[in-house]
């Protein structure tokens, strides 16, 4: 055995090899992503961008503009709240359909077994589709039906978060202690009764806390959705950006950061109370 003093990293060879391999795999992706730092330095781009950034200070605080920002902020909060309320209305029935621990046909042979299975499958597909399409895509699609404005945003949040909530609700209901619900079902109670008396008491805290967390996410998302015309702060920011009005953009950005911080702390306080 070689006991010479090693002043080099014994694992160096493997590390270098791994890094090279990784780089070789990733190299083409740089190409596909059109990675080109020089683009930022072309005179046209550079000038426009630095001009725009230099306008960020001072932020615009004209009374007229502030009034608009205030209205948009209120709208953003309302969008998130209304959206989550609708999402819950969508998610609760869906999650009750797909929750295994409430399945009567799982207890044993039952009439209507096939129909129940079909309903469960359809509900799962609907949930997959609802949360598989990002909220901003929903917003873009809905804007074409309901026109520009917060209504499309509310519905987009309702659909996407309805799917997410339904999935997580059913997961929570399945990981809770399900023996009480099972006992109720075996004694012949209906699914609703088994849910209300067997599952809900144990799971309500977790369900509520997750819903509040999603509300916080919805506040964040409702800002972004404005970029496709779905109302709120995002729409205002989009307009200011298109006009290259840096002062307005930085003011909106500050309000947005404050709003997210506020939503964060509200959700934290509520979730602490629930825990």
């Amino acid at each position, binding site marked *: 055995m070689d006991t010479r003093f090693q002043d080099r990293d014994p694992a160096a060879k493997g590390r270098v090899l791994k890094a090279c391999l990784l780089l070789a795999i*990733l190299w083409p992706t740089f*190409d596909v*992503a059109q990675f080109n730092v020089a683009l930022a330095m072309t005179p046209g781009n550079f000038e426009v*961008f630095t001009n725009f950034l230099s306008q960020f200070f001072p932020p615009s605080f004209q009374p007229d503009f502030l009034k608009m920002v205030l209205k948009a902020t209120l709208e953003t909060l309302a969008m998130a709240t209304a959206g989550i*309320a609708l999402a819950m209305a969508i998610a609760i029935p869906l999650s009750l359909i797909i929750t295994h621990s409430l399945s009567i046909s799982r207890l044993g042979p039952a009439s209507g077994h096939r129909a129940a299975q079909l309903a469960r499958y359809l509900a799962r597909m609907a949930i*997959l589709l609802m949360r598989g399409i990002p909220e901003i895509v929903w917003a873009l699609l809905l804007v074409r039906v309901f026109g520009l404005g917060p*209504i499309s945003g509310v519905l987009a949040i309702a659909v996407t978060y309805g799917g997410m909530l339904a999935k997580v609700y059913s997961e929570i209901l399945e990981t809770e202690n399900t023996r009480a619900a099972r006992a109720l079902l075996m004694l012949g109670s209906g699914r609703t009764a088994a849910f209300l008396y067997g599952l809900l008491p144990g799971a309500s805290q977790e369900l509520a806390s997750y819903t509040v967390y999603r509300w916080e996410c919805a506040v964040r998302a409702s800002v972004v959705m404005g970029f496709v015309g779905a109302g709120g702060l995002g729409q205002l920011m989009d307009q200011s950006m298109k006009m*290259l009005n840096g002062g307005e953009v930085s003011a909106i*950005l500050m309000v947005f950061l404050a709003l997210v911080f506020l939503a964060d702390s509200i959700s934290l306080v509520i979730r602490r109370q629930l825990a």
Partner: protein
Amino acid sequence: MTKAVSRDFCLKCILTFLLILSLVVASFVVVSFNPLALFTLEALGDMALYIARFFPPDLSVEFLLKVSTGLVQTFAISAVATLLAALMSLFLAVPAAGQMGQGVKVLTRFFLNFLRSVPELVWAVLMVLAVGLGPFAGTLALALHTAGVLGRLFGEALENHDPSAHLALRLAGASKAQALLYGTLPILGSRLLSYTLYRWEMNIRMATILGFVGAGGLGQILYYELSLLHEQQASTVIMAMVVLVVGVDMLSNQLRREQMHSMG
């Protein structure tokens, strides 16, 4: 149970419930939206007509080729952005963990918080201004936001890890950089890698929509086709998005489950 469950009159619960209910109602008033209006015959008919325009999806070979290019581009944007962000975060994590003094730590944390709290889409608009339309803008935007997230996670990992290996190397005469590279990083490596992979998963999802502001990938194709009222093409792109998002979701769930099994 010997004693009946207390079903006392709970004033606080009722008040809380009423407060939440009134806030929800107020929200609907603010956005002037009556959800019941969705269920009128006219509205339902409009929606059905609109949905019908998305069928059948355009499955011609040339369009599928275009969509697959977008798919590859989306994937590339997310991969490159995550890699760049991970590299940046490694450098930012050292000051963020307070290894270069308290003042630098506060400054770095503030910078990271800023990077993190500006949404990806806003970064994308800014980057489109800076480097022009195309996937490069999306890559930069994702990288900046992700650097904020990963920088904080890496910094926290660096701050809270077991320092004995680091200390042993330092006491044996290694420099700070050597102790970091050979003492700390090997211990933290797998954790940092799992953070990075987790962010990559989220970035793939994000990269699909950055194109809405012109930053490349599937989103750009979707936005373009929808602006031209090509709903059939749009529905193909949406299908590709769902496949990508759900596929990544399932893959990562599978991997996570396997890892949990192997860890016992």
